[in-house]
């Protein structure tokens, strides 16, 4: 399966009467976006605001971040099974408005979380302080049930991103990157002397505000399966996860999975990237047993020499991570795990909720319990009500000038457990 990803670099975003891209500037029509979002009668208000790098702007609470993309050639269309019809994707040509995002924000539930600062000392902890963001602040109708609101919010973001992505359809990309993974036997034969490496991508799947969808299928209801890495670049996986902002894998992160990106960079050089095993992180322990058995079976079945595993979240998923690590290792495949850590504010406690002896090689993406200072910003997109009770905030954390202190885990993707961040821990 071969995908050409045409990267259209965006250097500014502005409002206009219609939505288009010209000379690296993304122009968006506010009215059309609002109309699109309000097609869903579960939502009563949609306000579009723009946020650019360096501005004194704070965005909160953030639900999802999505990179606008459009499929210009090949089967299927972006976000299959969710926005567009169910059809295999990952082949042909896709255009991405690189450097821009669509961000959905607004109150989802009573506890608030997920901050993006576009400037100041905390901007460096999130990748979205460096992107040109089209923010859609949504508001549900009175009394809307939480599941319905989550679904409405998720769909609003994906619809807007698909709409904005269309602006890139007829634009000549600044760069075209080609990714290719062949059917298994051909892929192994292409680089017979290089180690065969795979990637186990664990999808959050615990329930409300903790869900992920593959071609529209709720991940808690599937069993582990094989995926061509390019499928994910066409939106085969979308996020429905709204908790734990620091290690939330947004839809943007699925589209731009850094493990897949890096494995492709080394593909044919010092490793042979065979493919991705998708699995879940269910609450039911019997599901964990079944799915980790199957992950190990698939790794052995396709003859991997080594693989990387990433998780999403803390606690329950740590058990899946460890079961996958242990069983894959015992089946004869070497494992490196990638995760973030929660060792307490002093850094002295156990950083994961579970551990096995087989987990002896780990890449850390940093720890979420550190306290950081958030200076006041000129403008807030969304709301900063109840800062003291935000996840990561605490009683008395807010000052009279609107600045506050909070744990790093309040920032979107600050310790994301797939490495799409700038934090790490080293052992000396």
């Amino acid at each position, binding site marked *: 399966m071969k995908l050409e990803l045409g990267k259209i670099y965006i250097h500014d975003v502005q409002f206009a009467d219609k939505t288009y891209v010209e000379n690296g500037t993304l122009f968006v029509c506010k009215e059309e976006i609002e109309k699109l979002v309000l097609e869903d009668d579960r939502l009563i208000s949609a306000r579009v605001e723009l946020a650019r790098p360096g501005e004194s702007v704070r965005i909160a609470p953030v639900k999802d971040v999505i990179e606008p993309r459009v499929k210009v050639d090949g089967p299927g269309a972006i976000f299959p099974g969710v926005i567009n019809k169910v059809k295999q994707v990952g082949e042909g040509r896709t255009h991405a408005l690189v450097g821009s995002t669509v961000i959905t924000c607004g109150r989802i*539930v*009573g*506890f608030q979380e997920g901050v993006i600062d576009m400037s100041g000392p905390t901007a460096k902890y999130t990748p979205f302080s460096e992107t040109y963001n089209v923010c859609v602040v949504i508001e549900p109708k009175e009394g809307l049930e*939480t*599941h319905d609101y989550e679904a409405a919010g998720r769909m609003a973001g994906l619809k807007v991103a698909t709409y904005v992505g269309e602006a890139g359809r007829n634009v000549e990309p600044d760069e075209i990157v080609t990714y290719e993974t062949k059917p298994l036997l051909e892929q192994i034969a292409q680089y017979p002397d290089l180690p065969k490496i795979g990637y186990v991508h664990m999808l*959050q799947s*615990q*329930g*409300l*505000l*903790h869900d992920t969808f593959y071609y529209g299928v709720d991940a*808690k209801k599937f069993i582990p399966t094989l995926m061509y890495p390019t499928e994910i670049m066409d939106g085969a996986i979308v996020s429905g*996860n709204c*908790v*734990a902002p620091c290690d939330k894998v947004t839809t943007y992160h699925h589209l731009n999975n850094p493990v897949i990106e890096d494995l492709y960079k080394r593909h044919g050089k010092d490793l042979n990237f065979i493919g991705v095993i998708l699995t879940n992180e*269910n*609450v*039911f*322990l*019997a*599901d*964990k*047993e079944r799915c980790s058995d199957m992950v190990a079976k698939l790794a052995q079945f396709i003859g991997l020499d080594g693989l990387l595993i990433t998780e999403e*979240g*803390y*606690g*329950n*998923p*740590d*058990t899946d991570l460890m079961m996958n690590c242990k069983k894959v290792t015992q089946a004869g495949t070497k494992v490196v795990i990638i995760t973030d850590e*929660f*060792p*307490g*504010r*002093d850094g002295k*406690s*156990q950083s994961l*909720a*579970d551990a096995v002896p087989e987990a002896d090689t780990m890449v850390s993406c940093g720890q979420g*319990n550190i306290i950081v200072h958030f200076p006041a910003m000129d403008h807030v997109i969304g709301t900063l009500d109840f800062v*003291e*009770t935000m*996840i990561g905030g*605490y*009683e008395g954390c807010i000052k009279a000038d609107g600045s506050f202190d909070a*744990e790093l885990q309040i920032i979107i993707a600050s310790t994301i457990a797939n490495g799409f961040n700038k934090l790490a821990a080293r052992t000396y």
Partner: protein
Amino acid sequence: MDNVMVTNNCRCFEKWKDIFQMEFEEGWTYLDVLTKARDYIHQGYHLLTHPLAGSVKPNQTPFKSIILSKDTLEDAEEFRDLVLIEDSIAAYHKFIKGKPLPDWPEKSREDFRTVDLSLMEGVVSNPIMNRR
């Protein structure tokens, strides 16, 4: 299946009180639920759900539900459940030490109940839970 649900979430209690044996006290803390579940494990019960289910951490949500059973659905290693529950209790203390549970307004408490309920709904809808 001889199941018991240990919970401090009234929404779970109301929903499943006729289906499961319930251990429910609205006044229980998250730790009380973990400790009660540990008691059951010592009495020979098996964990059916992960004690730290949900990404909302023990110093963030007041609510916790855990389902245990006299039967086991897996071929788990000996003492796995005890290790899991003890590790969960250790994790609880680690988080609470760093930052106590906020005094949430009722609106937030209700959202936390809804999330906890949803985690359990995913489990109870599993066909294997209807095995007799």
